[in-house]
């Protein structure tokens, strides 16, 4: 007898559950057919970095090493150099600039401490999170890979960290 009630009760439970599940079919979907469809990320998303330039294309970084000091995983490597030439001819906005600027993405944890530390707004996060490679040495990104002028067409591109950028709604990648 109790087996029969058990079976009936379990069947009722399954039917009830299935009704709830099937009712979801016509409703709004939250799944995204990634990678065929793009994923949206929030404006503050912390992806791969961008090194910014000023309105004349001069690098903003002054090689102050603050980002390297703030980095909890010690993955930023900088070599500073002075360029005494006039503004029009040099690469940096200021006389001092980073001759070498490497971020080792084997180690980076995308914490945003470097962005928070930079006094010149020279480094921000972009939106790219698809950085897997076949060779670990390819994850060592140099200044050439990180400069915003080199990334204009990439998924990583985003404007400098400003209040409008942060407060805007969603960002399609």
């Amino acid at each position, binding site marked *: 007898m109790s087996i029969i009630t*058990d079976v009936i*009760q*379990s069947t*009722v*439970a*399954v039917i*009830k*559950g299935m009704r*709830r*599940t099937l009712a979801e079919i016509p409703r709004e979907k*939250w799944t995204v057919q990634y990678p065929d469809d793009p994923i949206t*990320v*929030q*404006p*503050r*998303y*912390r992806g791969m970095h961008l090194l910014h330039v000023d309105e004349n294309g001069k690098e903003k970084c002054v090689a102050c*090493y*603050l980002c390297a*000091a*703030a980095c*909890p995983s010690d993955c930023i490597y900088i070599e500073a150099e002075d360029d005494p030439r006039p503004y029009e001819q040099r690469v940096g906005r200021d006389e001092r600039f980073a001759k070498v600027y490497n971020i080792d993405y084997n180690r980076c*944890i*995308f*914490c*945003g*401490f470097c962005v*928070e*530390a930079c*006094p010149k707004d020279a480094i921000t*996060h972009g939106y790219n999170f698809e950085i897997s490679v076949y060779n670990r040495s390819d994850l060592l990104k140099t200044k050439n890979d990180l400069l915003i002028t080199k990334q204009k067409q990439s998924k990583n591109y985003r404007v400098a960290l400003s209040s409008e950028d*942060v*407060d805007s*709604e969603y960002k399609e990648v």
Partner: protein
Amino acid sequence: MSVAVENIPGQFDDLDQSLESQMTLSMGPQHPSTHGVLRLELKLDGELVVKAIPDIGYLHTGMEKLFEYKKYQQGIVITDRMDYLNPLGNNLAYVMAAEKLLDLEIPERAQTIRVLFCELQRIASHMVWLGTSALDLGAMSVFFFCFRQREKILNLIEAASGGRMTPSYFRIGGLMMDLPAGFERRCQQFIEGFPEALDTFETLATGNTIWQSRTQGVGVISREEAIDWGLTGPCLRASNVDLDLRRDNPYSGYETYDFDVPVETDGDVWARYRVRMRELYESHKIIRQALARLKPGPIKADAPKVVLPDRDDMRKHMDSLIHHFLIVAEGFSIPEGEVYHAIEGSKGELGVYMKSDGTPKPSRVHVRGPSFINLQALPVMSEGEMIADVVAIIGSLDIVLGEIDR
């Protein structure tokens, strides 16, 4: 030293002298229902569990030692990675321990936002618990409903901090950034949609006879044993002990919120399930209150030597810039002393012990992870149960291996 090898008592001694009908089964570390890389050494008599010995350490990363090599503010990112389902709770325990040593006054808005995010995170953590433990017991669709709600919360966390699983949103002395514009509206949308989801869970699991018979009377732990084993959080409250640090040792302004502490009496898997389900309603209530009392105001404590200055301020004022340089490059030192600060994490009492020797790096940080201590009770709960119920018991403990192994 002439002790014969056979006289040295060993941990696995009685496992070796198994009866004819007994066998030893290794469950995990790659078993999906052990929620990570937990290995259980099960001694079975037929289908009955005679003894269960958890074997941990597969995820050990030396985080507690790592704290000693990082400046105080850099330690925050390590805490994210301990209990990766409750990162904001970990952040809070860590920063509050440091704030206690520094004697910092945290502004109202920052405290409210902290409470808001901790409760959102608690819901997200409980969603993963409910989804995975239901999946272990064969209820597949609950998992998808849970993860949809969690996705909404992760989007909110991402909107504020930029990270989903590793937000590092709290800072010693305040927050990383203020909330983005439109956050309140989106959070409001979430809390309006959430009761319907709770309804779904109640239909799919609570009212389901299959679910009830899988969980009721399974993995019982008595009130006395629960206290002896040092259980905390929902596991303790399911054994009829009314203890919640949010109410009994309030921090971050929890004493001003109106919420109940759910307690159940049976101490079985079902009771633990009910406690967590009822906690979801309470967290929902707290989020609603926190959102209602969000007022504009400062989000960082007034301590220029510890807290990074406002970015605008830093660009305009020389002294702010100097402080900024010093904090980032040298770190800040905390007066000598030691402190223990515990919060009610999503899994229990999450405590951080911090010892400072007056330098910019802590001389010792220890974390009391609730998962680690709750897991100790697994042998008590599972002895005499069927092997299939061990899966239900592990699910009901809500362990995260990242926190157990650290």
